[in-house]
């Protein structure tokens, strides 16, 4: 398993990319988590009658996203905006409450465990916390061999070992790490191992959930470089979840900005950073601590992010938005495509009130 892995397959990826079908397609995705416990706990005595009452956290409320082959789509937003839930739903760790997820045209959100297996090999995930994402009782060799053995049960022992050696070399870890356990390594080294585990089965699509947030600055650069090298060498497509806009600007080809479970703006990275349209995107961008300016002018947002239990009516951002009017309080804005390739969900932008 060396030739298929190391050389990108131009024919295959081209023919598929040409017909314009996105690799991953998310349509109307919603995810609610119940806050009310099991059936017995939901029963409440109200007005002399027994009623069943359920409260939900609305983590995602109708997300539409498309990822083309070869793209690195970054999803940014602040904590609680639902970006990690999107990642976990795409990977099948959570079941969507509504909506659908298509991978290369096939619907995958309602597949059985067995039917999902081929997709499990093609889609891999990298997690945030390198201290928790490696099983403390397994050696590095065992950790890396496990996914290969699972997805290629017919491979010989030697072939599995060769594949592990190869993937270890490609993420820059020495072969003699194999006999060791995760806790013997630093955070950056563990994240390399976690990336090696994801790459071991030769995937084409990687979901990375804040993969560098837990790392030190100098190590962040190492891991980000590694992810970019892997993207180039293996022709990978990324769904990259992060809160760090500086990383987005560097890594992403397109950016989706999320707020309270909805996408408020999607745009090519350069476009978004040059001309952020949505008022929330503008506030977010002005908050990045930059080295250059001494006296930053942050856009102050009023109030706080509302709880995702009781969603505001209309645009979820209206209570904090300086441009909000009556329409914003009532009507949910839809993503509307613009000439520069961006999509913005904002009545103000649509009406030309906000430039």
């Amino acid at each position, binding site marked *: 398993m060396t030739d298929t892995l*190391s050389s990108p397959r131009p024919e295959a990826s081209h023919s598929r990319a040409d017909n314009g079908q996105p690799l991953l397609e998310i349509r109307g995705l919603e995810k609610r988590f119940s806050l009310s416990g*099991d059936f017995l706990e939901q029963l409440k005595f109200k007005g002399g009658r027994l009623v069943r009452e359920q409260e939900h956290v609305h983590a995602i409320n109708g997300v539409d996203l498309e990822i083309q082959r070869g793209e690195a789509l970054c999803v940014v937003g602040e904590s609680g905006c639902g970006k990690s839930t999107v990642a*976990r739903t795409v*990977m*099948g*760790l959570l079941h969507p409450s509504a909506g659908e997820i298509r991978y290369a045209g096939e619907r995958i959100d309602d597949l059985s*465990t067995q039917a*999902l*297996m081929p997709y*499990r*090999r093609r*889609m*891999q*995930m990298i*997690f*945030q*916390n390198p201290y*928790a*994402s*490696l*099983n*403390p*009782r*397994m050696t590095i060799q065992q950790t890396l061999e*496990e*996914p290969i053995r*699972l*997805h290629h049960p017919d491979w010989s022992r030697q072939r599995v070992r060769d594949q592990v050696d190869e993937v270890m*070399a*490609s*993420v*820059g*870890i*020495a*072969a*003699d*790490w194999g*006999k*060791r356990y995760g806790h*013997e*390594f630093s955070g950056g*080294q563990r994240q*390399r191992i*976690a990336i090696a*585990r994801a790459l071991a089965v030769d995937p084409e699509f990687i979901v990375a959930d804040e993969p560098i947030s837990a790392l030190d600055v100098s190590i962040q650069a*190492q891991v980000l*470089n*590694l992810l970019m*090298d892997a993207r180039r*060498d*293996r022709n990978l497509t990324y769904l990259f979840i992060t809160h760090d806009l500086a990383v987005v600007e560097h890594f992403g080809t397109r950016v989706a900005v999320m707020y309270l479970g909805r996408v408020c703006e999607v745009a090519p990275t350069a476009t978004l950073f040059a001309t952020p349209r949505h008022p929330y995107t503008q506030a977010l961008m002005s908050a990045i601590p930059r080295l250059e300016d001494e006296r930053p002018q942050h856009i102050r947002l009023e109030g706080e992010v509302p709880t995702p239990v009781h969603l505001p009516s209309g645009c979820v951002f209206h209570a904090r938005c300086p441009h909000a009017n009556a329409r914003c309080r009532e009507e949910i804005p839809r993503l509307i495509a613009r000439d520069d390739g961006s999509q913005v969900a904002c009545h103000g932008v649509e009406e030309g009130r906000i430039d």
Partner: protein
Amino acid sequence: MTTQTSPQQAPPLPSRWERLRDSYLLYSFKRDPIAQLSLLVFVVFVACAVLAPWLAPMNPYDLAQIDILASELPPFWIDGSDPAYVMGTDAQGRDLLSTILYGARVSLIIGFGAVALQALLGVVFGLLAGYLGGRIDAFLMRLADIQLSFSTLMVAIVVGALVKAIFGSATFSTYAVPLLVLIIGLAEWPQYARTVRASVLAEKGKEYVDAARTMGLPSRRIMFRHILPNTLSPIFVISTVQVANAIISEAALSFLGLGMPETHPSLGSLIKSGFDYIQSGSWWITLIPGAVLVVLVLVINLLGDWLRDVLNPRLYKG
């Protein structure tokens, strides 16, 4: 594709012996005289129990060796003792030292056997409940609650009564050891199940389990290969406590006449057999096995305490 940075170097790989030598386990053991003493006593106990047929001056199960005329002889430090019976004899003329050695053997076998059964049931149920959650969790945990509301005594009475009624007392006596293992094992598995479930729930939230799931591993493999090894520490700790508890349970059952018959006495039935003679001044038949039982349970509990402190991850960073 080797545009990567050169492989990073790692510290030299320690051998298995070096790992043990540098481990926190050994370090804390060396600094804890109570743990050392407890382990020593426990090892002596186990060795004596295992070697009882060779160590004991006589075989208390062999009726031919029992001299009824030599009954109720006091231990060696009291006037009227017989040098042949160091610890004296019981009411049936059995050498008390030999009986205690054999009795400790029975107690330990039942203790470990019952805990093995508890662990098997508890670990499997706890893993299933914790990992699968939902209805299975609710069902298994309610089952555990129900089980716990029947005391060990109730289970023993029911099982004992059933066996005696169906197969007769003779069968019960013959199969007393496996029956007691079954009774105590059945009665106390919920302790394990609860502990295992709690730590499974904690582990389940960790990203390595998510990683295993996104890989597509079957649930069974995730449970046994990924989660179970990471819940071993609490299992070890609870095992020590449970062994002590099982020995006490067995002693209590035997004392009440629901356990080992007096022909094959455990420590508990020895205590019971001597209890009737305390009034007549033959206190040693009860008190010496009693003291042995207390010491045995004490050292196991002390070892368990030490183990809990060592394996507590919060105190780990020494």
